[in-house]
């Protein structure tokens, strides 16, 4: 009986195909929309996270307080032990990246190896050389290289392209870096510029230099030390989860007996991206905007689905008349209609999720290149529109998809009560 009914439903274009298509498109659009909005926002957040703050960050309190001075003497020692602790006490999904934030003076020599120009720079050191390092991908260094290559050997440097212009430096130029070591001593070390990078943020393009972590540790005499541990969740993890992990890590932090090489006054703190640069407030506000947009959109989709339900219902008045004439009770008729609506909703939602989800996934993984006009704006991270597939997006699509389908059918079926069987039967002849 059920298969008979099911086959009937599928064969009848009006009964199945139209509402199914509408539900599919509607759900797909909502999934896409949520994914897109999440993607745009998370793109913005991730830009900050990737460059600067991480999703989670372990840093010495005294370093954090004087971050503007980049006090290397407040670094955290015992890299391996610290990493082990972080891996053990955070979520297994989190990838922990050690970094050093440093500041120094760049001395550019002329061909006689005498000082030609000097300028202060800010720098970041990160793992740029290990084969399994995520950092290159994270900062999209490959695609933002304007000239040259990524560091392969030791003491190689990537430089913001505008800084290179100002210093009149090209790839291959040797550079001396003059700064302060971990313990306050003088540091001078030679580097070679191997690549010029376009970060897309003027301040960085003009003042930023990237070097490999191991090189930095050797230059600043910071063996086994870093200033920051940045934790990254895979894309798709909701940022509420960041807070949960942070919370549990805080508890762990209180009971941590510090590694032997840490200074007595080292007191690491754990921060999430929410705690930095007021991202928290922006996130909250974004949730409101997203809720608003998705709400309006869902409302519109419900209207469309409802309309589709009504249309297909009206189309079937004749059939209703026939069935009532055969003696089928009204409630049973409406129940089967509701069941049909439910099935259409479920199947449409599934198809829509699949369609919208795969498109959003494509946007997440590959992105939508907005072309040259966009590239001119020079934003390394944002020249490609990206989405983010989230569970929330599916829920926000599926629930109204099913609901509207059933509700639309039911509203249409209400009309059956109003009309006499004869009327409906006449409409059968007409239809």
């Amino acid at each position, binding site marked *: 009986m059920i298969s008979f009914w099911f086959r009937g439903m599928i064969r009848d274009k009006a009964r199945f195909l139209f509402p199914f298509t509408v539900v599919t498109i509607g759900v797909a659009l909502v999934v896409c929309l949520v994914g897109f909005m999440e993607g745009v926002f998370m793109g913005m957040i991730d830009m900050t996270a990737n460059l600067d703050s991480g999703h989670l960050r372990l840093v010495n309190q005294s370093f954090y307080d004087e971050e503007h001075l980049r006090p290397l*003497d407040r670094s955290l020692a015992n890299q391996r032990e610290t990493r082990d602790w972080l891996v053990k006490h955070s979520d297994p999904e989190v990838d922990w990246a050690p970094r050093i934030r440093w500041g120094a*003076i760049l*001395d550019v*020599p002329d061909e006689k*190896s*005498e*000082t030609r120009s*000097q300028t*202060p720079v800010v720098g970041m050191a990160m793992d740029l050389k290990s084969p399994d390092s995520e950092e290159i991908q994270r900062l999209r260094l490959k695609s933002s290289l304007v000239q040259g290559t990524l560091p392969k050997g030791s003491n190689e440097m990537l430089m913001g392209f505008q800084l290179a212009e100002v210093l009149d430096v090209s790839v291959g130029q040797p550079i*001396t870096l*003059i700064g*302060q*070591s971990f*313990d*306050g*001593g*003088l540091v*001078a*070390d*030679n580097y070679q510029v191997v690549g010029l990078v376009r970060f897309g943020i003027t301040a960085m393009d003009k003042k930023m230099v990237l070097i490999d972590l191991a090189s930095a540790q050797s230059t600043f*005499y910071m063996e086994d030390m870093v200033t920051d541990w940045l934790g990254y969740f895979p894309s798709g993890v909701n940022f509420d989860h960041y807070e949960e992990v942070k919370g549990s890590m805080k508890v762990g932090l209180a009971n941590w007996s510090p590694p032997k090489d840490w*200074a007595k*006054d080292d007191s690491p703190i754990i921060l999430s991206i929410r705690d930095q640069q007021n991202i928290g407030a922006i996130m909250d506000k974004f949730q409101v905007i997203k809720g608003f947009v998705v709400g309006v959109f869902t409302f519109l989709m419900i209207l469309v689905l409802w309309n589709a339900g009504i249309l297909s219902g009206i189309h079937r008045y004749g059939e209703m008349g026939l069935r009532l004439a055969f003696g089928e009770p009204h409630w049973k008729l409406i129940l089967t209609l509701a069941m049909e609506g439910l099935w259409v909703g479920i199947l449409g939602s599934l198809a829509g999720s699949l369609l919208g989800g795969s498109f959003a996934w494509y946007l997440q993984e590959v992105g939508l290149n907005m072309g040259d006009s966009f590239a001119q704006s020079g934003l390394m991270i944002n020249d490609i529109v990206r989405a983010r597939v989230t569970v929330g997006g599916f829920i926000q699509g599926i629930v109204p998809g099913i609901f509207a389908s059933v509700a639309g059918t039911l509203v249409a079926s209400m009309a059956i009560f109003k009309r006499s069987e004869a009327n409906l039967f006449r409409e059968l002849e007409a239809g």
Partner: protein
Amino acid sequence: MKNKIIIAMNILLFCMFTFVNPCYAEEINPQKLLEQVDENLWANTKFITGRLIIDNGRKVRTLTQDSWMQGVERSYSRYKSPAREKGTKMLKIAGKLWMYTPRTDRKILIAGHLLRQSMMGSDLSYEDMMEDHKLSHSYSATLEGFDELAGTRCAILHLVARDKKTTYQTRKVWITPEDRIVLKEERFAKSGKLLKTILFKDYEKIETRLFPRTMVFRDMLKENTQTTYKFDVIKFDVDIPAKYFSQSILKR
């Protein structure tokens, strides 16, 4: 009996200082005194083996160095320890300062902004080190009064820079008129705010001069930092090979 004599002598001495002071003050020619101080400190040539003890409030580091100086305009220093700084050389010739580190194997000009940075992490800037004029040459001195410092009577000279470009426009120096040595120096901002103090300690007679074995620098705007310069070997009027004051010394 002996004690009584000592007490009597002390009283006499006290009276002498107390009452004779005004006339004594008149006798002091501050500028002259400053010149005498310079003469005592600045030999034609000088060799020093010293230790730079840098305390940044958290950690104490000690650097050892050999320095050769000719007048006030030329100096050459070579760092001997710790291992990281070993082989680092500094050469100052007539207002220019170069640094050489074995790691970079380059001579780097320390100029402009870099001059104002702390030297080797100490409370001294490269600029402080670059001073290439005798105090009596750069400053005009006036006598401000007398003060007792570590049990020694000192004349306090107020120094005002002759040139507007001098980093510290005013200084105060505590000089013992008898020995013509400086015990303390204060360096001020133009406004008169105290920026740095230097204590000169452990004076010893070396050849014909009295020379401090220890100098303690403090940056008064910062908390808990101090740099101590200890001179272990001091030789005056030594022969210095000419190559020490040539840029060609700045290599391996």
